[in-house]
């Protein structure tokens, strides 16, 4: 039996021994232990160093509010820094390490800060480290950064998986203590869909550490029986190891389930943690109450714990907090702990009650000091004695642990996360949950009902009310007979006067009463200012233990009530949640879905290199054997298209089918160019503006029937344009008789471009597609040989004789293969978006590189398209604004490099020859650039101030980011075939 493990008692399985290590030392515990209880049992009291002063610290609580007992659990890539030992379930093989110490826990250099503490008062860093100016970042800041922080990570890739899930219920009960179990039982028997979530690995809450018999049996046995019934109810979901961390709008709760944080060898088929979004019609918070520490001199030494933690370690885990325990209380809870310890044969050094008188009775033989206090403690890595004070008389009392009880605060965190402010209760000397509406109520100790019987009744009563609100018959439960109960009354004591050493309020961040005094003195007395100035409440425990005392102390200093001081804001997360759990499975390759073109397989078979284009994978270029760089491939593809023909996958374009008697009118209002008179069987380039007059998207409009259009969008804005059209149809003009549908995925679409395109296509298409029968901009359904229905559009992005052929997606690969076969004799090649980009650039066509949301049609050289005679279209009115028509706007131009050995890249800026670089002198920028195999040099599209007036000017292309400056000649943006002879051929 280890040093502090009691001979019997507790809910740990003494027949089941678990091995674990702490800072490399091999230790043992039992199934049912937390890491904290096992460490205590092994006399491992010192767990870490505090944040600022590096003071030795030990375990202070037995639950999720723990400020001190933070360790790193696990090793390698499975290392979890800042794990609370008080909630970490012990398992065989657990490895734990202390934090924030160097070189070792016992001998920590940083502890020198403790000696310097008078210089390190709250906010000291705002007042110094300013001289010399450069020293802050070079010297002081690195030192501060290294000293701060707790756990360590070098950010290795996490080997474990996470999962997110949705759950729905009529009633969510948070907390499986007496109130929560009673509530869940009533709701379960009444037929509600119930979820019972509990952060602990055993359900039962306070019943697990209570001793008063319930229904004639130990309370944990009673709890077990209730849990069993709930487990067997099909309408109940039990969620142990699940912390409800957030309450969001519409009664959506966030909860974290620790699925595999209790094993050394993980099951790869399961996530390590699971995030639940629980949509609850109603919720009951049965989250219990938190015992407050007392603020006295030296109250942070290892061995000093809350009294309820001392009781829990004794009753639930069979571990004595010390061999001789001093108890310091301001209410009856200290007496209960005295009874618990006495019953288990643990020596009580003294019981000090800050109240001069009370009805509480100390166990027989225990020395009771009424009206006394502790003003200091002794000891280094474990408390060895307390300095008790009674009426100015000081006495040194030996002990090796201190149990302190400063009264109780209901745990109302979740109920305050949506803006409601806690309400101060003078009677309970505590902040209570605000009225949160019918969907969320508190019950039991969380509602200020501390007695066990009250908890049962309150939980059952509130569940019954919810059952009835839902419109069902509530099935009541009979409250079991409960043995001797204690009522934890207390007299608030925010801090103990006469402290002989630092009295800590926030343990982890080392905020003591002196810091709060300084804050008030310097004008930071507002509770938010005090928090931000002293950092009280900003540690990993978010002030769960300390804030209430800080508020009480501030109230005292300012001479107001705690109600007037108020609390800082309660915000998610109740306890910290891993990035992994919140991200779930939507990481790495699953971060966003991948879209594959129907021609993906064809492209892959032809050796395509793929590139991300939004969610799509698009074929970028098709390297052939012997080609060493992408440029070689692209140059070849460009030349092949210009000389013979090429086939490119354009399936990713957005495609929308538009129907209805008002379809033409609708499209006429959407596009800035005329659409109404587009003949059936014809296509037209279309430009859509935003209402602010800037270009939104471009594409083609084809009229397939009088009341039937087919429009395409760019790949990038397919979704956006659809929404834009839906807005126009549903909100702006609901009277127009038009319906439309995205058919992007129905069609595989390929561009066949080049002088040989017609010959190749004709081999596959049944219909006559001669220039006469199928002229430029023809658009209609055709039949392919082999009896396949298709759509053919004679449109060109490359400037070549070109067609876009659309076939049902599943047939895309087969048709592409057929075209490649038919084209082989003509020297066809497959080409990708890189070549497409060069081809369109040579032809001066714009893409979203040019149409970047700040460009008007006129800027892009498309001003003549505007149907100014149309009565209305989106963007018409604001296009006329002064700034959009100003003469010095940047206009689309072409650039030809004048120094052949130099290139131009997109993103370069433009300067007049000889001008000094400055924002004022900036003449524009390069939007797209490439090497043109056709022209044999580098060319670019650029936006240049008043550019169309400046053709022929020699201009500086200024790319200081790459350290490149080069001369270029400004020219018309159309570099090839300005007469469109190839297009019309």
């Amino acid at each position, binding site marked *: 039996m280890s040093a502090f493990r009691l001979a019997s008692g507790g809910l740990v399985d003494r027949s089941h021994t678990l091995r674990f290590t702490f800072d490399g030392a091999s230790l043992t515990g039992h199934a049912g232990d937390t890491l904290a209880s096992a460490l205590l049992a092994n006399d491992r009291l010192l767990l870490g160093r505090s944040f600022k002063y590096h003071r030795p610290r030990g375990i202070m609580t037995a639950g999720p509010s723990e400020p001190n007992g933070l360790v790193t659990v696990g090793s390698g890539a499975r290392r979890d820094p800042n794990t609370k030992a008080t909630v970490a379930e012990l398992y065989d093989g657990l490895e734990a390490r202390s934090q924030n110490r160097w070189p070792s826990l016992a001998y920590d250099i940083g502890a020198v800060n403790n000696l310097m503490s008078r210089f390190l008062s709250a906010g000291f860093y705002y007042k110094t480290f300013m001289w010399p100016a450069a020293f802050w970042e070079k010297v002081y800041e690195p030192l501060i950064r290294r000293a701060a922080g707790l756990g360590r990570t070098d950010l290795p890739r996490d080997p474990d998986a996470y999962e997110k899930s949705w759950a729905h219920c009529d009633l969510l009960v948070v907390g499986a203590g007496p109130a929560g179990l009673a509530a869940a039982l009533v709701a379960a028997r009444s037929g509600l869909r119930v979820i019972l979530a509990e952060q602990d690995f055993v359900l039962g809450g306070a019943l697990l550490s209570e001793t008063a018999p319930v229904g004639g049996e130990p309370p944990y046995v009673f709890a077990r029986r209730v849990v069993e019934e709930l487990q067997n109810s099909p309408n109940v979901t039990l969620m142990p190891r699940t912390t409800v961390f957030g309450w969001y*709008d519409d009664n959506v709760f966030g909860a974290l389930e620790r699925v595999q944080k209790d094993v050394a060898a993980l099951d790869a088929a399961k996530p390590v943690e699971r995030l639940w979004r629980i949509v609850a019609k109603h919720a009951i918070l049965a989250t219990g109450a938190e015992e407050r520490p007392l603020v006295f001199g030296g109250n942070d030494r290892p061995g000093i714990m809350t009294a309820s933690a001392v009781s829990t370690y004794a009753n639930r885990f069979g571990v004595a907090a010390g061999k001789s325990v001093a108890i310091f209380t301001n209410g009856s809870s200290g007496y209960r702990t005295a009874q618990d310890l006495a019953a288990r044969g643990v020596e009580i050094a003294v019981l000090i009650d800050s109240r001069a008188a009370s009805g509480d009775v100390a166990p027989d033989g225990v020395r009771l000091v009424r009206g006394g206090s502790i003003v200091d403690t002794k000891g280094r890595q474990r408390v060895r004695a307390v300095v008790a004070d009674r009426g100015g008389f000081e006495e040194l009392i030996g002990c090796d642990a201190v149990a302190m009880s400063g009264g109780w605060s209901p745990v109302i965190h979740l109920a305050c996360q949506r803006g409601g402010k806690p309400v101060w209760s003078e009677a309970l000397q505590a902040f209570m949950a605000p009225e949160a509406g019918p969907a969320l109520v508190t019950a039991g100790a969380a509602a200020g009902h501390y007695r066990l019987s009250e908890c049962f009744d309150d939980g059952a009563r509130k569940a019954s009310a919810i059952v009835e609100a839902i419109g069902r018959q509530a099935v009541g439960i009979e409250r079991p007979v409960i043995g001797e109960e204690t009522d934890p009354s207390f007299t608030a004591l925010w801090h103990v006067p006469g402290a002989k050493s630092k009295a800590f309020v926030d343990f982890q961040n080392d905020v003591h009463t002196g810091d709060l005094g300084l804050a008030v003195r310097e004008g930071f007395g507002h509770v938010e200012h005090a928090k931000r100035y002293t950092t009280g409440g900003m540690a990993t425990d978010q002030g769960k233990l300390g804030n209430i005392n800080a508020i009480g102390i501030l109230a005292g200093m300012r001479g107001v009530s705690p109600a007037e001081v108020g609390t800082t804001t309660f915000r998610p997360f109740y306890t910290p949640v891993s990035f992994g759990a919140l991200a779930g499975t939507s990481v790495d390759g699953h971060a966003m879905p991948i879209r594959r073109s129907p021609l993906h397989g064809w492209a892959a078979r032809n050796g395509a290199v793929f590139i991300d284009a939004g969610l799509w994978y698009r074929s970028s270029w098709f390297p052939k054997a012997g080609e060493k760089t992408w440029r070689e491939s692209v140059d070849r593809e460009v030349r092949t298209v210009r000389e013979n023909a090429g086939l490119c996958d354009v399936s990713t374009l957005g495609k929308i089918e538009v129907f209805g008697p008002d379809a033409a009118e609708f499209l006429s209002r959407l596009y800035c160019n005329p659409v109404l008179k587009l003949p059936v069987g014809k296509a037209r380039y279309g430009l859509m503006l935003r209402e602010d007059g800037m270009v939104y998207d471009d594409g083609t409009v084809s009229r397939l029937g009088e009341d039937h259009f087919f429009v395409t969008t760019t790949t990038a804005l397919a979704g956006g344009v659809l*929404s834009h059209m*839906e807005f126009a149809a549903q*909100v702006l003009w*609901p009277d127009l008789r038009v319906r439309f549908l995205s058919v992007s995925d129905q069609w595989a679409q390929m561009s066949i471009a080049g002088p040989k395109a017609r010959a190749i296509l004709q081999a596959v298409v049944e219909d006559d597609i001669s220039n006469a029968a199928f002229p430029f901009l023809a658009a209609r359904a055709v039949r392919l040989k082999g009896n396949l229905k298709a759509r053919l559009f004679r449109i060109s992005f490359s400037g070549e004789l070109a067609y876009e052929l659309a076939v049902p997606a599943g047939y895309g690969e087969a048709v592409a293969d057929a075209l490649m076969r038919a084209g082989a004799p003509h020297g066809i090649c497959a080409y990708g978006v890189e070549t497409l980009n060069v081809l369109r650039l040579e032809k001066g066509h714009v893409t979203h590189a040019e149409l970047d949301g700040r460009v008007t049609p006129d800027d892009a050289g498309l001003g003549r398209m505007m149907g100014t005679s149309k009565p209305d279209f989106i963007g018409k009115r604001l296009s006329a604004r002064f700034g959009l028509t100003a003469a010095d706007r940047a206009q689309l131009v072409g650039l030809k490099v004048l120094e052949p050995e130099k290139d131009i890249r997109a993103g370069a800026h433009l300067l007049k020859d000889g001008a000094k670089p400055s924002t004022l002198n900036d003449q524009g920028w390069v939007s797209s650039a490439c090497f043109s195999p056709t022209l044999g040099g580098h060319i670019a599209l650029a936006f240049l101030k008043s550019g169309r007036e400046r053709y022929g000017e020699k201009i500086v292309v200024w790319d200081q980011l790459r350290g490149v400056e080069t001369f270029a000649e400004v020219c018309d943006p159309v570099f090839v075939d300005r007469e469109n002879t190839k297009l019309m051929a």
Partner: protein
Amino acid sequence: MASLISCPHCGTRPKEEFFIRGDANPVRPAPMATDEAWNDYVHLRVNPRGRIREHWQHVAGCRRWLVVERDNFTHEVFAVTDAAKAGEGAR
């Protein structure tokens, strides 16, 4: 709100299924309305704190544009209406 929206066509759905456009009150002026009216429509917003009407589109559901009437301080939702229907009411 902000977590769940009750689409009149699809039922209660999470926020992620929607695309939000903004204030639903401005009405697109007639083509020949004044410059001021157009500037007001495109650029100016009352932006009150409290009860507002906002355009949400159920993109992952029925793809209808909805008018969500809600309080932008408490995040309470009062009503969700199909925008075409809401428009009829306004006319």
